[in-house]
């Protein structure tokens, strides 16, 4: 039962942390919950489909179907996160006013919620497929299914609880720092996902260069430990990154930061001509 709990907890945490960040980053914004829930449900549906077709997926593309699917879903999430950050840079001021209850409310259609819904859906799809497959294995094997199922539910509850810590942490951030903190977190998240995507492309032997392992910090903090896994999702920490992963990580950070800076509206022009 403990084994099932640990396995389900691991997968739920990876999606749950992302959901916690997205929910926290959109706190108080009208209409955001609907999109997050919708994204999660779509992701669950997709997870079921992927799990059902796991065999066919694995065989596709000359045996690299699974890695390619993971890479594609991750890449989609990265693009959506980058787009959200760029959008926020452009409209953050108006949203801050809405949050503070003063002045302009941003029309729902203008918001970046669909992008975030896709990020949530992508995370739930990736991790959900593994959970579905694992649970199917439990049910199909019929070996003391009840205790294993109890463990799985325990893992789900624990994962949800840990993820909600992130959410509560974010909503406690004072408004004046809120956007800079959440956009920094989302940027780190995107860079981490991009590095994971690069890892899958290397696993599929599509990207064969830059595969030297840059360092090994597994003795200090293994990315299979609890804290290591949490950091892996939140900021993209891996204990043995390849050169390509490092390159992609730094590149994503720089690109998103620069693009958001470029999208930000210029400072309000002086009211009177400068002397």
């Amino acid at each position, binding site marked *: 039962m403990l*084994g099932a709990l640990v*396995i389900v907890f691991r997968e739920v945490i990876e999606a749950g942390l992302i959901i916690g960040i997205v929910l926290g980053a959109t706190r108080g914004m009208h209409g955001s919950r609907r999109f997050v829930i919708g994204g999660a449900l779509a992701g669950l549906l997709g997870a079921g489909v992927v799990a059902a077709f*796991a*065999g066919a997926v*694995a*065989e596709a593309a000359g*045996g690299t179907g*699974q*890695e390619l699917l993971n890479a594609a879903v991750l890449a989609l999430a990265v693009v959506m996160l980058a787009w959200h950050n760029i959008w926020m840079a452009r409209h953050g001021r108006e949203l801050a006013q809405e949050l503070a209850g003063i002045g302009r409310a941003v029309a729902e259609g203008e918001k970046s919620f669909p992008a975030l819904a896709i990020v949530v859906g992508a995370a739930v799809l990736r991790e959900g*497929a*593994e959970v579905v*497959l*694992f649970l*199917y*294995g*439990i049910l*199909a*094997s019929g070996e003391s299914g009840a205790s294993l199922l109890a463990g799985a539910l325990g893992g789900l509850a624990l994962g949800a609880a840990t993820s909600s810590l992130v959410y509560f942490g974010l909503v406690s951030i004072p408004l004046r720092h809120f956007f800079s903190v959440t956009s920094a977190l989302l940027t780190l998240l995107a860079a981490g996902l991009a590095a994971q995507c690069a*890892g899958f492309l*290397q*696993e*599929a*032997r*599509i*990207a*064969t*260069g*830059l*595969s030297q392992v840059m360092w090994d910090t597994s003795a200090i903090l293994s990315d*299979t430990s609890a804290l290591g896994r949490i950091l892996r999702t939140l900021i993209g920490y891996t204990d*043995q990154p*390849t050169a*390509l992963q490092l*390159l992609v990580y730094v590149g994503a950070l720089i690109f998103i930061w620069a693009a958001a800076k470029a999208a930000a509206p210029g400072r309000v022009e002086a009211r009177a001509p400068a002397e």
Partner: protein
Amino acid sequence: MRHLRGLCLGLAAATFGASAVAEETTLRLTIKDHHFNPVEIHAPANSPITLVVKNLDATPEEFESKPLRVEKVVAANAEITLRLRPLPPGSYPFFGEFHEDTAKGRLVVE
């Protein structure tokens, strides 16, 4: 700006360029009753390895190995193909994530 294009092309070439073709080794592994068979497989050093994992169980397993940088689900009664880069001599453990206590093995490269 001119140099940026060259830099990008160079990076792309480094990433996607094909590695030199060395003699390839094919290894086979089966999963039965949540155990790997054989538990230990051997391969020569510095040769690209193709590992075929066949799942004889009626439930899925997730083949995972950190040193081999592999994480892939094998559906029930199905098989997957893993292409491993040429490896230096050593012992590379792998396990089945869904049944970690019984599904354990290692690839010995010498």
